[in-house]
């Protein structure tokens, strides 16, 4: 274990291409950042290499938190291990039937639905039945369990998902199976544990995702525990925006499905709190996707789930909205107009300017043509930026439109930004907030490059580019609270609510959410509990979160619900309402403080480059080393460090603060 002199806390974000790492030592207020290539085949090895890359030995690490897209990538790329599904007899086809809806309204060339997550031959109908109040209509008997066990052994699967009708109302049968199956297969996922909420297709889908993620997660987490034996200091970031101990994740790996993007948002939350920004929009633009999220009063918005392709992943998580547009998104000029994405050049071959065989124009190529990218940029095995190659692929579009290459590139950026603006609008509208009142927090490879243009288009006044913008998700792993979240269907009408019964259920939930923290040495007194009732009118579907405190006050809840409904939808009626479910978050607030990172110093060209901006083409533009920014930089300027580029267009200023954040605003300093 670590000796007392070393108190390094390390956060890493394992992305598809790079593993980012950030290390912090509180005593000396020291921060180190690095990037190493990810190793999809040996993720643990990459994490250990990342520790070396910031000049640390394993024994110096006191706490190690990682976020990863490993689970999500496995899901998206369809690389999930074989899983069996046990459903109530008569309903075993739940996944194939889904909700009937097809993906695309006007295309017959693509199948209306993707294949079910579990093929028919691995779905088992189990004779048992509950009703919606949890009453047993048909008991699960021993012979049926034997029949299931026999079948499971035959299939040879290592992981099984059990999702029985109405199990959210009564887990009895699932619990029995949990006990009986644990010696039959290596991994068992029970729907009442994974996602105890009504609607069978969505719950089953979540449970199957969890079952499929389990073998992957258990394997690499166990390896990590072995090779970095620091006990409870070893933590994983989860989709709801906090970290959890590894022991808890092994049973519910689905909680880390969105942990990468969530970590970036979490870092944003600490910045929003530090700066006292009441409304912030995160803008994380990567190679193939862009993630945005809304932060109000230092809290990131939560959602009940998201779609992965056409499959629902229902699970409380940060409301990160992802769109299929990033630096590698391909630009097309069709008869219907110019479009950007969702097809991407990916990392292979990548944009044309990477000089690795890319032949289609991308957003990154447009940025290269405009002079924003340093031609000498070296990242991993990529050598330089080939501006000529970028211009070559943009030229055909320019010719078709009768415009210059520069005008065309600026237009491409404008359309890309319109796509981004739509995402920003989406997350603010859902919350009834005007996005123009928000501060834009830009990070990821493309965020700081596009932020000012996006702000101009959307009418946003201020932008923050955080100090560790290139390793921002890794940073989020460290600055997040230590927390665990439980959500359960309650479905209690507010009129005539049985307060004592409901309070009891809430007390149990609080216990469940706190247990993993207490098991990891957090004292009960350090734990903050946040409660939200997900409420709706009796006849509605979507419940909206209404925060509350104990003791439960039904009148207060109703007033708050009406106010929230009016805020969201512009009206409220006096119909009866229902608490659909209760969300409990137990957390120990973060105390980690970040100082200005000592970015590995690297010579950046401090000369000038010819850049073009909206309205002013081909002007000699100052190139500034970010490490050297201690005063206001007036646009036009490009601020660079080893891994990121901040575009400051004419009419914009960038002002640094002591910790290295950059504030971009319009007008005179």
């Amino acid at each position, binding site marked *: 274990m670590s000796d007392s002199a070393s108190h390094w806390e390390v956060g890493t974000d394992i992305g598809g291409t790079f593993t980012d790492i950030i290390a912090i030592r509180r005593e000396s207020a020291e921060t180190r950042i690095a990037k190493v290539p990810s190793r999809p085949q040996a993720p643990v090895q990459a994490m250990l290499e990342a520790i070396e890359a910031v000049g640390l030995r394993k024994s110096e690490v006191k706490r190690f938190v990682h976020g990863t897209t490993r689970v999500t990538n496995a899901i998206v790329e369809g690389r999930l291990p074989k899983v069996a599904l046990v459903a109530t007899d*008569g309903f075993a*086809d739940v996944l194939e*039937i889904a909700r009937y809806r097809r993906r695309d*309204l006007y295309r017959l060339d693509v199948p209306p639905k993707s294949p079910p997550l579990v093929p028919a031959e691995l779905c088992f109908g189990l004779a048992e039945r509950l009703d919606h109040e949890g009453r047993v209509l048909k008991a699960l008997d021993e012979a049926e369990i034997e029949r299931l066990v026999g079948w499971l052994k035959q299939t040879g699967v290592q992981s099984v998902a059990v999702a029985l009708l109405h199990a959210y109302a009564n887990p009895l049968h699932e619990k029995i199976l949990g006990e009986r199956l644990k010696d039959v297969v290596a991994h068992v996922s029970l729907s009442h544990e994974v996602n105890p909420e*009504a609607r069978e297709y969505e719950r089953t889908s979540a449970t199957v995702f969890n079952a499929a993620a389990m073998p992957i997660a258990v394997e690499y987490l166990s390896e990590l525990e072995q090779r970095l034996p620091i006990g409870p200091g070893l933590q994983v970031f989860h989709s709801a925006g906090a970290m959890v101990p590894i022991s808890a994740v092994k049973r519910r790996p689905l909680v880390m499905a969105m942990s990468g993007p969530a970590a970036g948002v979490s870092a944003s939350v600490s910045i929003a709190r530090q700066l006292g920004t009441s409304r912030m929009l995160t803008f994380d633009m990567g190679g193939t996707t862009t993630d945005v999220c809304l932060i109000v009063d230092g809290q990131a918005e939560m959602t009940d789930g998201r779609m992965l392709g056409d499959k629902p992943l229902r699970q409380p998580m940060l409301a990160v909205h992802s769109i299929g547009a990033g630096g590698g998104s391909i630009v097309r000029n069709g008869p219907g107009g110019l479009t950007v994405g969702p097809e991407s050049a990916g990392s292979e071959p990548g944009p044309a300017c990477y000089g690795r065989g890319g032949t289609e124009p991308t957003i990154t190529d447009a940025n290269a043509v405009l002079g924003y990218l340093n031609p000498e940029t070296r990242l991993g095995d990529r050598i330089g930026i080939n501006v000529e190659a970028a211009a070559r692929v943009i030229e055909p579009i320019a010719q078709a439109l009768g415009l210059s290459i520069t005008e065309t590139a600026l237009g491409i950026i404008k359309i890309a930004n319109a796509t981004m603006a739509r995402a920003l609008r989406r997350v603010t509208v859902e919350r009834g907030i005007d996005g123009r009142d928000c501060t834009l927090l830009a990070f990821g490879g493309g965020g700081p490059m596009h932020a000012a243009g996006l702000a101009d288009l959307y009418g946003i006044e201020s932008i923050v580019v955080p100090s560790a913008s290139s390793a921002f998700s890794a940073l989020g792993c460290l600055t997040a609270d230590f927390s665990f979240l439980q959500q359960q269907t309650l479905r209690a009408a507010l009129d005539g609510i049985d307060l004592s019964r409901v309070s009891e259920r809430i007390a149990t939930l609080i216990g469940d959410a706190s247990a993993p923290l207490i098991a990891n040495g957090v004292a009960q007194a350090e734990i903050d509990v946040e409660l939200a009732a997900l409420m709706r009118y009796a006849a*509605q579907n979507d419940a909206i979160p209404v925060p509350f405190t104990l003791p439960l006050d039904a009148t207060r809840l109703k007033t708050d619900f009406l106010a929230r409904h009016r805020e969201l*939808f512009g009206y409220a009626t006096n119909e009866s309402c229902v608490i659909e479910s209760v969300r409990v978050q137990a957390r120990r607030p973060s105390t980690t403080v970040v100082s200005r990172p000592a970015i590995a110093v690297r010579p950046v060209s401090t000369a000038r480059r010819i850049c073009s901006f909206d309205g002013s083409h081909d002007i000699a533009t100052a190139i500034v080393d970010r490490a050297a920014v201690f005063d206001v930089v007036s646009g036009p300027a490009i601020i660079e460090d080893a891994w990121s580029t901040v575009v400051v267009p004419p009419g914009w200023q960038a002002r640094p603060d002591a910790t290295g954040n950059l504030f971009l605003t319009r007008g005179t300093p």
Partner: protein
Amino acid sequence: MKLDPFVVEVIRHGFSAAAEEMSLVMTRSARSPLLREAGDLSSAITDGRGGLVGQGRDIPIHLGAMAYTIPELLKVVPADTLNDGDVLIYNLGALGGNHLNDVKVVRPVFVDGEIVAFAVSLAHWPDIGGTWPGSYFAKAIDTFQEAMRIPPVLIATAAGVSAPIMQLLKANVRDPEACEGDLLAQIAATKAGERRIVELCRAHGKAVFTATQARLHDLSEIEMREAIRELPDGVYEGEDYLDDGDVNNAPARIHVKITIAGDEATFDLSGSCDRVSNFCNTTPFMARSAVAYAARIMSGRDMQQNVGALRPLTIITRPGSILEPGWTASVAAGNHETSMRIVDAIFRAMQDTIPQRLSAGGATTAGVLFFAEPRQNGSWSMLYEVHGGGEGARHDRPGISATRVHLSNTSNTPVEVIEANYAIRVEQQAIRQHSGGAGTYRGGDGVVRAYRILAPSMHLTTCIERMVIPPFGMQGGEPGKPCRISLIRQGASVAIDGKSNLVLQQGDLVTIETCGGGGYGAEAAEMKGGR
């Protein structure tokens, strides 16, 4: 006006985003399961004269009809009589309508005193009065028996929602509380649309904004003309049949004669049968909506759906026919059944010319089961269930099972939601094995869903097509199995029709088996995929 192509694209994004936002407001805040679970609603943005410029990812049949919703309205409510803050409600067939359940809520969007756009929210009300709960009355002799007819009236003005109109509407529907919530959600949706449109217009200036709307129509027209020019000139005929409703209740013929000439196409539907004796009549707007969908599939292009794409198309219906039966004919089911048969007939007309763009016949029926139980206070608790079925196979792949095809795209209601809200137990929900037609590629399979009635009594409406005439196979593929419906009462089978209104008893078991899709190609099914 010379337009920056990038600005056109930015504004186009803005229109789609505004429409999508409207649908989001609806599904998140509506009351009826039909809207919130099944998503039987659509949103659209039109230009100042009513030409569609933006739509949500909703229901094609609605979106097609929206091309006519505003232009027809403006013929009876002149634009200069409208004020900022006005919101109109209407459902009449003559005003670009489809069936009375689909209620349109429309808000003119003003910028500097001028209408620059309309925000339209269309929602299928689960009940809108009339003879039978749910407003689907199979034997209705006219629309007066079907449901309440709403001419364009102001449901809201700048002063707020009109209490008298709200009272009038609530007094004529069977679930007034849910109706009010749904309607407020529709009004809120148009408000959300208005907000976005005004922003968009102000950001780019009115001149550019208006010119862009016109440009979007022109771009779609150009693309549709190019697509038609690629099709070989000629006359193509196709037909398909509804199960019944013609003279002596014989199958009702839908016939199309398509003439492709240069960059224009004529779809002549005059050969379709006369007005039918059940609720499968429909409006000429539905015929146009179905043709618009089919033409887009024929084009093989992913173009913007708007009025411009319709300009090269001439669509002919015959007065007195099932597709132009007069404005008081019963039309409840024609909306989703007869319109689908038009698509089927067009596919059959083109199947030898462009088979690779089409698919064999699919589950072109909504397979509606509507359950209604009276509450003690006199209002009704109602469940509108649609059922997916098999998709038709294609030249390169089998059909997918349990999905919605072509003009529809509504969802099922989860078993756990049904059982928590209605006196019904769902006893089975499964794929209907081997119901897809054989072929080189098999058609997709239908579904089976069985409902046990727990209430002392319950009203049931069935509206199911493709029970007699199955989905067709293509290029030698076999047809899918037709739909079936059964009722078991106290252990004995009771005859039940696909278009009926009846009262169920406690313990009754109603089982629907939906049709499979047609197969594609004559080779044996086992050779290449399928289930």
